[in-house]
């Protein structure tokens, strides 16, 4: 399975009439089992790009190739749970085919066992984020999209949740697209990093990470980070 993104342009029309270029021409592809990371400044058009890739926005120039049968799992920036359904119902509604065993495993990994019957309004943001993760993984997606899933969480919690995401991504051959601000998240979770420019967004640099995810030690991560900093300086 393969995702090909080729956007030749995207403009917004304001009510006043002037047009606004959001995305410059950009192109990338992802394979099964690969994690692509989009890194860019706030407001550069990442969310717009995701909406186009997910098929929520059809008003753009270019094309998105993904197998029509591909199942999509998505973690939005906000959890976007249904407040009137319990945690378990929220997951099951998105993934009606999920087996009890799979669901139990997900809830165990994400430490949600105690909250199955709770309503989203009763959960903290961190917990709600985990429910959103459980929902995305319960679908057993072919394409997993994570839009800043760790934003506005404290460091300790973000770190744990990042490890949980790494475990879940490693356990399936899903293509993953992660949007983040954090270089740390990017080098721990990603296989290929795409650095985006400010609006209108284009890919400034594509950096593959050769070392497999599971074999990256702390020293290794430090080295990658230093290399990235050097590359970034060069490109400026």
């Amino acid at each position, binding site marked *: 399975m393969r995702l090909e993104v080729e956007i030749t342009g995207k403009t917004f029309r304001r009510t006043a009439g002037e047009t606004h270029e959001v995305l410059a021409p950009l192109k990338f592809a992802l394979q099964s089992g690969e994690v692509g990371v989009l890194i860019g400044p706030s407001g550069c058009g990442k969310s717009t790009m995701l909406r186009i890739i997910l098929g*929520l926005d059809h008003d753009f120039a270019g094309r998105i190739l993904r197998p029509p049968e591909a199942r999509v*799992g*998505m973690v939005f920036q906000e959890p*976007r749970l*249904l407040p009137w359904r319990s945690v378990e119902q929220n997951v099951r*509604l*998105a993934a009606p085919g999920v087996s009890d065993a799979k669901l139990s495993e997900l809830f165990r990994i994400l430490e949600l066992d105690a909250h199955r019957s709770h309503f989203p309004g009763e959960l903290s943001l961190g917990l709600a984020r985990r429910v959103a993760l459980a929902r995305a993984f319960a679908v057993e997606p072919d394409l997993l*999209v994570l839009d800043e899933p760790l934003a506005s969480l404290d460091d300790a919690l973000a770190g744990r949740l990042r490890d949980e995401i790494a475990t879940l991504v490693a356990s399936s051959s899903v293509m993953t697209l992660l949007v983040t601000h954090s270089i740390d998240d990017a080098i721990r979770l990603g296989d290929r990093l795409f650095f985006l420019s400010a609006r209108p967004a284009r890919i400034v640099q594509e950096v593959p990470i050769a070392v497999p995810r599971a074999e990256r030690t702390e020293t290794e991560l430090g080295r990658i980070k230093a290399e990235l900093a050097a590359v970034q300086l060069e490109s400026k």
Partner: protein
Amino acid sequence: MLRLLSFVLFLAVWWIAALFVGGPKLPSPPAVLNVIVADASSGTLFLHLGATLARVALSFVLAMSLGSAIGYLMGRVRLADRLGDPWLILLLNLPALVVIVLAYIWAGLTEAAAIAAIAINKLPTAIVTLREGTRALDRSLDEMATVFAMPRWRAFRHVVLPQLAPYIAASARSGLSLVWKIVLVAELLGRPNGVGFEIGVAFQLFDTPRLLAYSLTFAAVVLVIETLLVQPFEARATRWRPRAA
């Protein structure tokens, strides 16, 4: 307890006023009760009440289902909103009496005309409320349902309907009170039975005890239905929302 007290107070004021005014204009509570008991034992009271309730139920269901569907459509589709809006304003401001009289003239003094006329009076408010509810739908949840490829019906039932439920409840409640009022006018003008018809007869004979007997029984039925049916439904539809402090 407080409710009971205010009811007793009402009875007392009525009774005292009846003693002062006297005569047929303001009968005392026992005189009215006599009429109620007499008509109840002969069965006519239940016949008329039943006819009225059946009309209320039919026209209410008709207006609610049609109004909800149109309101949802107008909230979702811009073109439908543009096309429907002038009609909506017209209907909203059309006096109930005009609709009822026209319905009787065009469709004859029939049951269908009466029910349609009542339903048309309630229709615009249901449309307006549901249109507002539809406009207030959370788009981010719609997107979530789209991304996860939820089938239409499942998305409607679990994503859209719970958001509309408070609006449906509000529209049902205000709509029911509107229908209660209009049904009597429609009966008075063109039906041979029902509480409205009986009140019309009482008016022509200046039979105040009968008039009060029927209006008070009707009011009691409305009160019972409001507390036992409408209020619990409303509470249930909004139960997941945080309570007002």
